[in-house]
């Protein structure tokens, strides 16, 4: 196995022509890894292995000679970064998104909020459950 990155987390198996990617799940969650892998499904064969708590291994095997394992590894790396930024932004904007949605619902159906407020007044526990969700 030949190490491809300075960090040593990308290894190339020249004989079998595949890349083995080691990922720290604390940096990239399994959701992000799956999303990045999904993008490459038409270009490569991908297999997940390892331990989801400690180290996730991603085996990337090109489907054809058009794509080299090295290129696919770099593409996968970029997709990981892409999705992690997307996820972070999405979580950041969650409040604004919910606010906009509430505003839309309120504009179209003002009764909606009356119903929610009435329900919350009658059952404060339901309000706490909604917040938790």
């Amino acid at each position: 196995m030949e190490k491809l990155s300075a960090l040593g987390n990308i290894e190339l198996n020249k004989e079998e022509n595949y890349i083995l990617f080691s990922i720290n799940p604390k940096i990239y969650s399994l959701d992000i890894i799956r999303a990045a892998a999904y993008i490459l499904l038409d270009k490569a064969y991908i297999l997940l292995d390892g331990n989801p708590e400690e180290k996730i291994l991603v085996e990337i095997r090109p489907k054809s000679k058009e794509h080299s394992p090295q290129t696919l590894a770099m593409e996968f790396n970029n997709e990981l970064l892409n999705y992690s930024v997307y996820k972070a932004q999405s979580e950041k904007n969650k409040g604004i998104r919910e606010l906009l949605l509430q505003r839309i619902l309120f504009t179209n159906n003002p009764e909606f909020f009356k119903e929610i407020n009435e329900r919350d007044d009658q059952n404060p526990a339901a309000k706490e459950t909604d917040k938790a969700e």
Partner: protein
Amino acid sequence: MIKIQQQKKQIKLNKSFYPKEIILAAINDFSEICIFLLKESDNYFLLDFEPKIEDNPDISNEFCNYCLGLLK
């Protein structure tokens, strides 16, 4: 991950990443082209398979990709 044992092929899928329902769904979808035997070890699902029509070397890889696709 994918090894050949006396002309019988085996796919090894980690239980932490591939739930059993997904594998069973994939087996069902591949049942026209392959015969599968599902076994389990502590951390892995072990799938012995034999292609029904012709031996396509990429079937096992396609199966893994298909499982990943079902996870989405």
